[in-house]
């Protein structure tokens, strides 16, 4: 493996980790506020579909992203009403959202486009194109730094930069703002927040609004940037990998970026080198590489290597004292 191959593998890892990162940060807001969200997958799926359909009809990828966010947001609000207002089971609500999205995307897609759930292929402005950062072309020939800058850092789609910008932003919001402090408190000890005169319900709704928007961007990225159109079940378990990354990073934004990059890297490896031969002794099958994110998450959860402790009040509906 030479230097350029490494750069290309890294480049692919970045592309593949963007969806995971956005979904993971989406889950972070929700879970830090005490709401379990296993419906990341469904929200991304509905957003991917709506974004592709609207981008196709309007001819603008950005309009598609907005529509995708709106779709994901409405699903997030179903989750919010069920789990915050009606104190329903958050896991059940998440499962329902995932089913609803896999059903609705195909039913509507089939009714509108009659292509077995697919949307027409996006072209031109309906799809995102790469941005070339300044000096990328002129620096390309410089040794080491050139390829890193022009291949790895430059030449991505705008949503990639937005996704990575959300990492420091999320850190800043959580750790340095009043809103972030309250959000974390709502997930750890809602009674104390309530005693301080802050509405637990309102805080949790706000968290799920952010979750909905971020999942919307993630889904839109899938169908308008990574691919050129929507395909049935195109999220393919990425919502669950994002959930795994969230646990793996112990609900912290900067670590989440690391975990998502790692899982994206594993996906890139399984795409580029399906079966890895280890010194001619044995082969690592591609299925193992694909299952590795899940295996690693179980190990972390088991607490043998650095225990992952979730927010304390997670999954419990808050009943206001009278």
């Amino acid at each position: 493996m030479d230097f350029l191959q490494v750069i290309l593998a890294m480049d692919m890892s970045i592309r593949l980790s963007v969806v995971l990162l956005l979904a993971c940060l989406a889950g972070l807001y929700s879970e830090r506020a005490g709401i379990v969200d296993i419906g990341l997958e469904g929200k991304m799926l509905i957003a991917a579909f709506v974004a592709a359909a609207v981008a196709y009809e309007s001819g603008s990828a950005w309009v598609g992203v907005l529509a995708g966010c709106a779709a994901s947001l409405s699903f997030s609000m179903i989750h919010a009403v069920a789990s915050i207002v009606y104190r329903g089971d958050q896991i059940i609500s998440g499962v329902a959202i995932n089913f609803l999205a896999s059903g609705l995307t195909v039913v509507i897609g089939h009714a509108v486009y009659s292509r077995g759930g697919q949307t027409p292929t996006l072209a031109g402005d309906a799809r995102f194109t790469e941005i070339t950062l300044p000096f990328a072309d002129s620096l390309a020939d410089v040794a080491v730094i050139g390829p890193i800058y022009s291949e790895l850092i430059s030449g991505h789609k705008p949503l990639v930069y937005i996704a990575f910008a959300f990492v420091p932003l999320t850190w800043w919001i959580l750790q340095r703002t009043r809103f972030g402090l309250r959000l974390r408190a709502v997930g750890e000890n809602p009674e104390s927040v309530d005693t301080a005169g802050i509405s637990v319900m309102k805080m949790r709704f706000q968290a799920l609004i952010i979750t909905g928007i971020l999942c919307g961007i993630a889904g839109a990225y899938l169908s308008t940037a990574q691919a050129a159109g929507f395909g049935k079940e195109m999220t393919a378990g990425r919502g669950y990998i994002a959930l795994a990354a969230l646990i793996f990073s112990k609900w912290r934004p900067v670590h989440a970026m690391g975990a998502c990059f790692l899982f994206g890297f594993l996906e890139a490896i399984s795409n580029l080198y399906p079966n890895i031969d280890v010194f001619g002794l044995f082969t690592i099958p591609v299925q193992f590489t694909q299952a590795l994110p899940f295996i690693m998450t179980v190990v972390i959860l088991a607490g043998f290597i650095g225990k992952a402790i979730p927010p304390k009040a997670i999954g419990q509906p808050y009943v206001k004292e009278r």
Partner: protein
Amino acid sequence: MEKMPRWADVVLVPLISIALAFIAAGLVVLAIGENPFDMVFFMVRGALGSSSGIGFTLYYTTNFIFTGLAFSVAMHARLFNIGGEGQATMGGLGAALVLLAVPWPHWALALPFAIMGAALLGAAWAAIPAYLQAKRGSHIVITTIMFNFIGAAFMIYLLNGILKKPGQQSAETVTFPKGAHLPTFHEMLAPLGIEFSKSTPANISFFVALIAAFLVWLLIWRTRLGYQIRSFGQSETASTYAGISAVKVTIISMLISGGLAGMLAINVVMGEAERLILNFTEGAGFMGIAVGLMGRNHPVGIVLAAFLFGTLNQGGFELLWEMPGISREMVLVIQALIIVFTGALVNFTRYPLERIFLAMQKRAN
């Protein structure tokens, strides 16, 4: 009495919830420009209008009984087993290994061993998450989700490797020995002079599922272990005070749950495909959650809910011919809406109903 009557909670709430789910589904159908009443007519006719339709309906019902029971046994201990899909997949492996290992002379001999194989591997796949929950406090929902994916990857690996039928493209094992063939409804009813469609996969597993439902009822409501499971589910601290071991209840109820999920393979792998194929569960493991919820975790309710879901599933195939404008995934939408209204939003129905009953009681006093 600050409560609504029991019958209202057990019968009225689910019925209203299902009605709401169907109304919502009807609105979706209207939105895509089709007639919801036509859809219901074609679905019911497709599922129950002919003996071949009924055969397929009962075949799907069998799957949903197994996975619904699996979900409910764990749920009685307040353990959310979302891993039915992975456990059923591994159950398929267990059944296949048993059936491939021996040239079975007769199905009556093969069936008990296949059940053991399927239940054993299904239970084994639930055992690790159960142990981690009981001993290490890792959340069972997350670990069982992870195990679904690990199980799926493992299955793809095996079916593309050592278990693959030689000289073939598709990932599947060789066909099981002839002696392992389970009697279908057609074969069972023919001696009685009843003509049942030959083309349906419904087989004797349906009765295995009904027996399993009875045994689960016996276990949960008539045995000491069942009592422990239920009291652990109601209050962990109270049952610990009463001397019930949290570790024991957690692990045993998950083992039973995983075993039941694994037994789905008897119907699908042994009864229908007669070989191990990829993705044979077709989401039935996940659907068990909805079946368990709708059946209020009671075997009678689960059998009824499984029948409803089986009807929907088979009816969905009929749509393909009769109403090409509606995709088969409409079934998934209906099922999802049933989960929304009977599960996540159950209090949306219960709160107002409770208020009405309390007001009525006040007036009566």
